[in-house]
């Protein structure tokens, strides 16, 4: 492998080269085995401290990062938005300055404002990992999606990968679009017109409002949750009407390609974007995604930890 990881931060997939993405995926492949050992831990990040700063609710991503940190022997601290001093009026920057003063080595940040982790990464010597910023990016989710596809299909290039649902508010879709197109996959995004971002073609993806067209010959269908917390304004007449047009169920999958993969970043609204029988059926790799997320996050922590040390020495 000739590519080396030289970035202090992972804020998104937008800037990553195909080689860098593959390095993360290959490293994750090597780290997978640790979670199958009797002692599920390696000493690699012993003495390093990671702060998990979740200013927006999260279960799966937070647990996944926390476990990844522990499996690499890092010390961890957690700050949740609802319990932090930001509710007392402290600015994000001040909160971060305070955490930096505790000599933390890495920060995992989730924030409702798009670009917040990028800002922190620029102002801090600490390594920053974006765990989801607004509607912008969720790089580790996209990396674990790509890892899962590569595990199941042996490759990414040339595959047809459909994203169905709320593309407009989806940082998962955005990160995936950057990453998948860079690795040569054919991406098509599908949803009601109101949930498709304007000029989404600029990502180098195809766009359709017709579910049939999206899933025709698809190797992978990645479903996006209908995000009720972001639905203050109405994007479609009713949940039922959305489900009628865009739900993935056994009926619409009648002509699915053999070996199709159904993915979902979770949490799933059963019976809305995805029917229960398909979610629990043979195409579904949703729980593999969760398992793989651990190895992918360990890989990111490992790769960034080397660069952090360099900053320290200079």
């Amino acid at each position, binding site marked *: 492998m000739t590519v080396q*990881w030289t970035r202090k931060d992972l804020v998104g997939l937008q800037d990553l080269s195909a080689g860098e993405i593959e390095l993360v995926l290959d490293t994750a492949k*090597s780290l997978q085995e640790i979670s199958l050992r009797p002692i599920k831990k390696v000493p690699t990040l012993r*003495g390093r401290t990671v702060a998990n700063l979740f200013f927006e609710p999260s279960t799966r991503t937070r647990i996944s990062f926390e476990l990844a940190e522990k499996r690499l022997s890092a010390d961890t601290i957690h700050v949740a938005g609802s319990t932090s001093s930001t509710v007392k009026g402290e600015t994000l920057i001040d909160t971060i300055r305070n955490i930096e003063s505790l000599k933390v080595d890495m920060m995992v940040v989730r924030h409702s404002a798009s670009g917040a982790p990028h800002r922190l990464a620029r102002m801090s010597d600490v390594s920053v990992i974006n765990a989801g910023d607004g509607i912008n990016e969720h790089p580790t989710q996209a990396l674990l999606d790509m890892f899962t596809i590569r595990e199941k299909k042996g490759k990414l290039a040339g595959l047809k990968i459909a994203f169905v649902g709320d593309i407009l508010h989806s940082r998962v879709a955005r990160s995936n679009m950057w990453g998948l197109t860079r690795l040569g996959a054919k991406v098509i995004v599908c949803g009601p017109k109101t949930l498709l971002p304007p000029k989404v073609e600029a990502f180098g993806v195809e766009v359709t409002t017709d579910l049939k067209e999206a899933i025709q010959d698809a190797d992978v269908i990645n479903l996006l949750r209908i995000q009720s917390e972001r639905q203050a304004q109405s994007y479609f007449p009713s949940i039922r009407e959305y489900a009628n047009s865009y739900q993935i169920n056994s009926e619409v999958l009648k002509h699915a390609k053999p070996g199709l993969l159904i993915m979902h970043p979770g949490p799933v609204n059963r019976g809305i974007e995805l029917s229960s029988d398909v979610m629990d059926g043979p195409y579904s790799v949703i729980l593999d995604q969760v398992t793989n997320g651990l190895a992918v996050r360990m890989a990111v922590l490992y790769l960034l930890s080397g660069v952090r040390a360099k900053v320290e020495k200079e």
Partner: protein
Amino acid sequence: MNSSKIILSSEEVSKAITRIAHEILERNPNRTEQIALIGIRTGGAVLAKRFQDTLQVIAKREFPLGILDITLYRDDLSEVGPQPDVKETKIDFDVTGKIIILVDDVLYTGRTIRCALDAIIDFGRPECIQLAALIDRGHRELPIKPDFIGKNIPTSKSEEVYVKLREKDGKDEVIVASKDPV
């Protein structure tokens, strides 16, 4: 490469492997069924496979074989990055109660072996771990001693020892060369 010298020829490498295989069986009489091999990536893993093949011919039984990547256990990871590539560790058998023959190509400072010992113990509790290396070049920095050695070579720290193996380099050969061509 200036002033390089062949230390072991292809034939001598084969002889050393066969001899060490016999020594492993002699050292562990009546308990060959407990013997398992673990090779340290990359050279040690290739050698461990050779030992496995040779032992199977001599003892007429199967021996489990694992591959170990010690990167995650290195004591110099906090030094200047970027991080070295991590390759997969593959130990598909239970190490508990086994006589583990840990295999490396060149024994030098002993730091790699320290990593390997820590890693193996994360997989279980072997009855014992014995160390086999094709070359012992000295300069130990830790109290580690081999059980089986192909050849002792006095070297200076400015020299490099290259163990070439046909599986990865096309032929078997051990070369000592000065590190920095003047």
